[in-house]
């Protein structure tokens, strides 16, 4: 551990900047509106995140600048000075953890976050309520930073819940729209289901290891006995429960259903929360607890299988989406699946690597789609776009960079991270095959998106065609920066950077020579197929459609997940509550018991009343009886 005073203070400053922004905007919102200073408010929000980014960079530089101890692990644990909870052996201090992994996350969150704040200045320029919007964005940044900087699981959980809250607020930002507020609620509730697993997992974790401190967990996990496949040891149970929480936050099967609906929120929100940062929290948590997951073979396999399955399923659904943001949403779910796949096969560092590259190009793609939507004055349907490459060249150019990156074309960032994932999975042929096939689908649906949106003839009508205009520079500037990032980010060897944190051996990467070639060819193949179907041969789609009907119908129905959940909620939860819990228990049992006591008392009284005859003689008899009884008691005791 590094003991440096600056490293003990800087991280708190990083945290507090966006929080301060939120507080200011929340407290003075009314004055700002009254004085028409909304733009200033937005700039304030951007500034806080930019300063935070600067401080984060400073922290990282300092962490690497100082000489590390004997172990290659360099970290610092800034401590606020007091405990949050303390009960017996259970101790939760207000302490953070600054190490390479949290630095990577911190930089991504503040960096990409800052760009998105700037972009929002342009995108939300006409919105009446941009002050709350910026305050929520700042608050989100604070919570996300708390999540990645938290030194123990409970603090991480505070950040976890906090970003969930902000997600709800931001998805349902246009609350007057019924579908938006419903989507916000759905996101929060589904997340909550996952959080049950998270809380139980924390409890099991404490039971198994006796600590919730991240450094201690990583240190002690190595001393646990490995648990074989199918064995339900404490580590397995804890990891599986925590993974349930991760599926909720990171939209994996079975709790993925909220992410596509979350596209109801403003596009910058989708970029920040549902592409670059919040949804990656699950991956971060799994990677953080990597040493513990390593102990449990069941947990690892579960993570890998769920990740691969989700990646494939989401990719197939993305094939048939007609809304530009929905394609990207399912693409996010799919890419998150890749990250979990990497973690599941033991390459936690690679998972983080993909998280990092994905932040760049996914944010770029979302912001780019926002630019397209802005150009078309709100149109999001791909069927009403087309031929835009000439009209909005900057948007088009950056978007294509992002698309190529996600498809995995070298030397863009996505190629490197995806290649590493496939390399890690090479020992498991089924998972590898799934990963490769999904890569094909990925490049196919991204190319489809590009062709439909930017090429061909404009299908949106005369009126809309007149208004097509390029976005203002305040929106284009972040796009350009992100495009540059998507291009060069892959050259940073993230896995090596975070390996010590994850207690992983930097095993000699056994290069499989043919893999990069195969991967690239797969990506190119996907693009070519899309080109043929959507550009070159117009009638081909119509001819192929009937054969693929059943599959397409399944994809369009999103594999019926929403229908199942809806049926379950409606029939079991609501129906059960109404028909059983309400009528039988609440009204019948509890009300019955309470009323019954009253009725019982009345009945008892009615039975006893005849004793009061009103006749003195009878009362005299009773007095005599009492006297005799008393006498007898005295007499015989």
């Amino acid at each position, binding site marked *: 551990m590094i003991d440096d005073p600056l490293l003990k203070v800087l991280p708190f400053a990083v945290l507090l900047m966006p929080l301060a922004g939120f507080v200011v905007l929340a407290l003075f919102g009314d004055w700002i509106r009254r004085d028409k200073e909304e733009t200033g408010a937005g700039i304030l929000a951007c500034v806080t995140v930019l300063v935070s980014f600067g401080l984060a960079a400073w922290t990282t530089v300092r962490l690497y600048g100082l000489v590390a101890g004997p172990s290659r692990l360099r970290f610092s644990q800034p401590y606020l000075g007091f405990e949050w909870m303390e009960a017996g052996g259970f101790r939760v201090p207000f302490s953070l953890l600054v190490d390479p992994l949290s630095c990577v996350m911190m930089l991504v969150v503040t960096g990409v976050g800052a760009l998105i704040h700037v972009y929002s200045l342009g995108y939300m320029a006409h919105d009446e309520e941009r002050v709350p919007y910026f305050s929520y964005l700042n608050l989100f940044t604070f919570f996300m930073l708390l999540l990645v900087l938290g030194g123990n699981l409970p603090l991480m959980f505070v950040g976890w819940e906090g970003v969930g809250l902000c997600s709800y607020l931001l998805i349902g930002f246009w609350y007057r729209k019924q579908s938006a507020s419903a989507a916000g609620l759905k996101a929060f509730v589904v997340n909550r289901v996952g959080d049950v697993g998270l809380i139980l997992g924390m409890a099991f974790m404490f039971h198994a290891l006796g600590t919730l401190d991240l450094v201690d967990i990583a240190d002690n996990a190595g001393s646990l006995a490995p648990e074989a496949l199918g064995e339900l040891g404490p580590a397995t149970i804890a990891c599986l429960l925590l993974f349930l929480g991760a599926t909720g936050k990171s939209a994996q099967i079975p709790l993925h259903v909220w992410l596509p609906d979350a596209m109801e929120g403003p596009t910058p929100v989708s970029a920040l929360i549902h592409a670059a940062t919040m949804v990656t929290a699950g991956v971060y948590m799994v990677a953080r607890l990597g040493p513990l997951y390593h102990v449990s073979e069941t947990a690892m396999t579960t993570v890998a299988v769920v990740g691969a399955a989700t990646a494939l399923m989401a990719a197939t659904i993305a094939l048939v989406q007609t809304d530009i943001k929905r394609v990207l949403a399912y693409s996010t779910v799919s890419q998150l699946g890749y990250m979990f796949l990497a973690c599941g096969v033991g390459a936690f560092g690679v998972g983080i690597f993909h998280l990092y590259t994905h932040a760049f190009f996914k944010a770029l793609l979302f912001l780019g789609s926002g630019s397209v939507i802005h150009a078309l004055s709100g149109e999001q349907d791909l069927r009403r776009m087309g031929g835009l490459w000439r009209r909005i060249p900057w948007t088009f150019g950056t978007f294509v960079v992002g698309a190529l990156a996600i498809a995995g074309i070298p030397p863009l960032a996505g190629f490197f991270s995806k290649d590493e994932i496939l390399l890690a999975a090479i020992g498991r042929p089924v998972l590898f095959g799934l990963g490769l096939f999904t890569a094909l689908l990925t490049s196919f649906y991204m190319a489809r998106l590009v062709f439909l949106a930017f090429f061909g003839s404009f299908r949106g009508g005369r009126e809309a065609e007149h208004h097509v205009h390029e976005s203002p520079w305040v929106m284009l500037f972040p796009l350009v920066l992100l495009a540059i990032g998507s291009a060069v980010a892959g050259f940073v060897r993230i896995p090596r950077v975070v390996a010590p944190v994850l207690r992983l051996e930097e095993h000699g990467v056994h290069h499989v020579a043919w893999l990069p070639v195969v991967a690239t060819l797969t990506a190119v193949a996907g693009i070519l197929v899309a080109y043929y179907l959507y550009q070159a041969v117009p009638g081909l789609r119509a001819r192929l459609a009937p054969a693929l009907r059943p599959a397409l119908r399944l994809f369009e129905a999103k594999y019926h997940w929403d229908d199942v959940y809806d049926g379950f909620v409606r029939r079991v939860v609501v129906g059960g509550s109404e028909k059983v819990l309400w009528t039988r228990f609440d009204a019948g049992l509890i009300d019955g018991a309470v009323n019954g006591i009253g009725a019982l008392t009345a009945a008892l009284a009615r039975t006893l009343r005849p004793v009061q005859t009103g006749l003195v*003689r*009878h009362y005299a*008899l009773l007095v*005599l*009886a009492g*006297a*005799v009884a008393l*006498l*007898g008691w005295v*007499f015989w005791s």
Partner: protein
Amino acid sequence: MDAALFYFFAAVAVVAAVVVVSQRNPIYSAFALVVTLCSLAAIFGLLGSPFIAAVQVIVYAGAIMVLFLFVLMLLNVRREVDRPGGRDRILAGVGLALVTLLVLQAGTVLLGSRRAPAADFDASTTEMAKILFSPVFLYAFEATAILILAALVGAVVLAKKEL
């Protein structure tokens, strides 16, 4: 000699008491009660308490019973309304049982002592006066005077037709 007198008066008292309880006409009950009271006075005398015997005759038989008779005459009470009721019989049965129990319990206690009566027993008026006006009972004695006054006022108020 005293014993024989005692048993005689005891018998009279019991018979008269039964008459008190059983007679339909309350006037007869009243007279029977007077007889009981007088027999009891005699027994008091036999037990060496002349003062009490005298007070019994003067106060009880002479004043209280006269009051009873006055009221009886005033209200012109004749026979009691005869209302046979199963309830009355149950009542009688229960009451009889209870009284029996009472008698048994009390009797065992009261009659248990084998002590012989005291030898020198002086309960003459002089001695009674000495003890009644002694500091032990003086206060209670005066209090009873107040009590009688209160009873007097109360009776008058209660029995008036209009206040």
